[in-house]
């Protein structure tokens, strides 16, 4: 629905305003088209129509269907680079993702529904800024850098920047880059979804310590992220989640507690994976 100044109306697929269609073949062409005021990028389109129904107006639609290179995925042993156009179904199974972060691959395979996973992209998921969409939560936990290109040149943003609407006008998300993966582990707990989900990334340092970076998503609003030294009690980590994590659906107190429990389970899973790795050496 769309809120006008004087009331509510119900846009549909048949009220989408007329727009000029651009179908660029390269990123540069895409950005040039996206630089025009009133333009919007379109890729999987699984969220785009909902945005039109909420009042999105665009005079130019820049379809990224034909743009080369947006679906590329690569891993160089340190950074996993996932093209923004990577479709969930393909990205979750990509050998680079599986080898770099098996926990991410496993989680990515489960989001949304089978049908949506055949069509929707990680870029669309992140850019939509919907609490129900899960890739932002995972990306934030992983400390992902979002690589944009805009009319003013390239820039790197965090998922928080996207949620805080700091993407430069005409900015096109090229890739989601997850750095420092040499000693990283990722796990995702979605058994309480949509109430809350927990993404945990553990990066070990050379001194035998490390960091746990936890992102907790909820039903009604954006996710929150906290960090703590590896070894901190998961309940204490979760206790640092801000009060805004509570909403009409569940209180902050419960969410902190449940997040702590789920985080504990993830860290136990990590510990047992390490233990069996040790055993097999």
């Amino acid at each position: 629905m769309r809120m006008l100044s004087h009331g509510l109306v119900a846009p549909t697929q048949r009220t989408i305003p007329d727009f000029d269609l651009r179908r660029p073949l390269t990123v540069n062409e895409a950005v040039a088209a996206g630089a025009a005021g009133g333009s919007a990028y379109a890729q999987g389109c699984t969220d785009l129509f909902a945005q039109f129904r909420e009042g999105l107006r665009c005079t130019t639609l820049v379809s990224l269907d034909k743009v080369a290179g947006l679906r590329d995925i690569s891993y160089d042993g340190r950074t996993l680079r996932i093209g923004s156009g990577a479709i969930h179904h393909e990205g979750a199974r990509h050998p680079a993702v599986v080898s770099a972060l098996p926990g991410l691959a496993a989680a990515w395979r489960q989001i949304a529904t089978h049908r949506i996973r055949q069509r929707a992209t990680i870029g669309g998921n992140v850019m939509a800024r919907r609490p129900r969409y899960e890739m932002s939560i995972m990306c934030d936990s992983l400390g992902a850098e979002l690589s944009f290109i805009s009319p003013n040149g390239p820039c790197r943003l965090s998922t928080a920047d996207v949620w805080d609407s700091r993407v430069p006008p005409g900015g096109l998300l090229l890739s989601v880059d997850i750095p420092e993966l040499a000693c990283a582990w990722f796990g995702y707990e979605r058994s309480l979804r949509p109430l809350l989900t927990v993404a945990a990334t553990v990066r070990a340092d050379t001194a035998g310590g490390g960091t746990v970076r936890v992102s907790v998503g909820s039903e009604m609003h954006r996710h929150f992220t906290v960090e703590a030294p590896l070894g901190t009690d998961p309940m204490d980590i979760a206790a640092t989640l801000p009060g805004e994590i509570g909403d009409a659906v569940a209180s902050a107190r419960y969410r902190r507690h449940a997040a702590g429990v789920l985080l504990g389970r993830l860290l136990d899973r990590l510990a047992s994976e390490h233990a069996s790795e040790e055993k097999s050496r």
Partner: protein
Amino acid sequence: MADLAPAGHSAAPPRVDAPAKVTGTARYTADVRLPGMLYAKVLRSKHAHARLISVDASRARTVPGVHAVLTRDELDGIAPGYGYFVKDQPVVARDKVRYVGDVIAAVAAVDEATALRALELIDVAYEPLPAVPDIDAALADGAPVLFDKAPPGIVPPYGTGASALLRPRPNVCYEFRYETGPDDVWAECDHVFTDSFAFSRMNHFHLEPFVTVADVRGEQIEIWTSTQNPFPLRKELARVLGTAESKIRVNVPFVGGGFGAKNNCKTEPIAILLSKIAGRPVRYCLTTEEGFLTMTQHSAIVTVKTGVLADGTFVARESKVLLDAGAYSDGSPLVAEKAGYRMPGPYRWRHIKSSCECVMTTTTPAGPFRGFGAPQATWASESQVDMIARRLLMDPYELRVKNFKALGEPFVPGESGIDSDMREGLDLVAAELGYHSRERMPNRGMGLAVSLKDGGGVNKPATARVKIATSGDVYLSCGTVEIGQGAHTALTQVVADVLGCPREKVVYAPINTDITPFDQGTNASSGVAVMGQAVQRAAEDVKAKVLEFAASRLDCKAADLTLEGWAVLRGEEMTPLTGLIHGSFGGTGFEFTGEGFYKIATSHEAPLEAQCVFWENGWAGAEVEVDPDTGKITVLQLVASGDVGKAINTLTCRGQDEGAAMMGYAQALFEEMRFSDGVLLNGEALDYRVPLAEDLPRRFVSITQEQGHGPGPFGAKGAGEGAMVPVAAAIANAVHDAVGVRITQLPLTPERVFTALHGFEE
């Protein structure tokens, strides 16, 4: 009643609407297109409560492509409000808006985009008023009042023990009361327990939206609409529009799900008025988001006071149900009747005192929803029965069995007898669940629940017509709408069984209120038990006429003849009817027509002025595992059962039971319209969670019982609601069994379970 066992009796031939539905050729109102058709969009209130100071649509009228604009300025001669018992809902807002989504203006244009552009140009000035977000706010001293003046309303005649009041107090549009037995029995009780329960609010979420195509030509109004009750709709439209019923024709194609939402005026008045102004057909179709702003289930607060003897014998029950009716009454008074009436459950009582009030709040109007007050009543009643069992240190199964009404025992004085053996059903479900023999495991438990619902509608007449053509083709015409429940299948089967013809020879005639015999509505699980009887009688009537005709041609008595296929048999001699008909009527042939009528007798002894036609009883059993660290409930098993009397088609019966049970399951665990201070947070498809296949319990079994005591054809009763009603309580009872905590509020969220387990730790 025919002695013949039906050919389709308890068999599973495919549904007759299968070819149309699996090929996508089935036509719904959403598919209706007329030449020159315009498209309507509406402007809705952004405030929960406000006076409408001004509505200026002058700029909207000038938009090219706009052919009609409807605001309160175009309501000359239109009744101030529509509704059921209380006529309080305006076609478009007049003096006030009473919920976010209340329609203020409507536009019909050459396409939706143009209509939307016109809406943007309508100026509205509001004077916001304080919202009334929930029951507590509505009943508080000095609460803002939704209706300054009481809207016109009626209280229908009630029988022994039942009564009602219009507007007993501010913000309550209707109160139903029922009382029977002496109230001095409270003094005999060894224990009196008073408990309160909260029932949540769901949206029907039928996949076909609310939609109407209206074609007004001069005085004649013709509509195609997705409705469950075309005849009452026609009547109400005639009254609202100030025209004769004979000027209104309602066509009802297939309906893509209703679940109670599609009754009485919804999209019809606006579509008709726009078409009248434009002089062209108008299609008014709501989006799913608008559906959340149109109709919902009732949430409720239920307080139950139950008196028992030390040995668990039930003595007295007093209850108070508060239904959140939303901003307009819609079917709330009727739901209130039933929520109050069903509070006793299938148990023996010496004294019953029930009260149910419809509380107005500035939220989406609530109305009929599958179960119709029984889910609310049963949630409270069956939860409390379990609580009482545990307080008395009794097995909840034993407490129920001890107090069940026996087969045939009147529900209350003056009522018909319960036509299911409640214990037989409970034993089936308990056995399927493994209830009695279960091993105790930590955090695992089992729960049972039962339900009772008077089925078949109240004082409901049904009429049907069957005609047979020269070739032996049969046409069944009756007003039961195919909303998915299998009406076409069951009713054509009844005709086929009476006439001894293949079911494929029976055409279910389209519903057109000019031609179709009168019916009160597709509701109350009445399709087979009530309409089925009218259909059976119509088939018997036409069969008798055919035999009379043949007898006159063959110069014998009708009693000498039997109908065999499309021929008559006299002793050994077979005479095809086609030739006989041509012989009498010439080459153009003839069609024989039979009529049938059924209605249970009016009785002032019966509390609702007519005895209940049949009892739609339900049984459910659940096994759950609770995660004590998070409070999450996993349903390991769900067994749900209804007693259909005799299944005319087992595919449809099973399907209805399973679909109903899943609705109850969803309500128990997660499905809910979430409001925060009266603001709807999740009124769209992404955020409003309905069950998917992956939500099914690990083991889900439905049992279609055929106890055989129904009044319908071949002992049939009704189905479609019974299996939903007890599910939520069964799951809550299982949770109580598993971890010893009682949740009295739906849904059974992890936080509620966790908090009950661990208390408040700050």
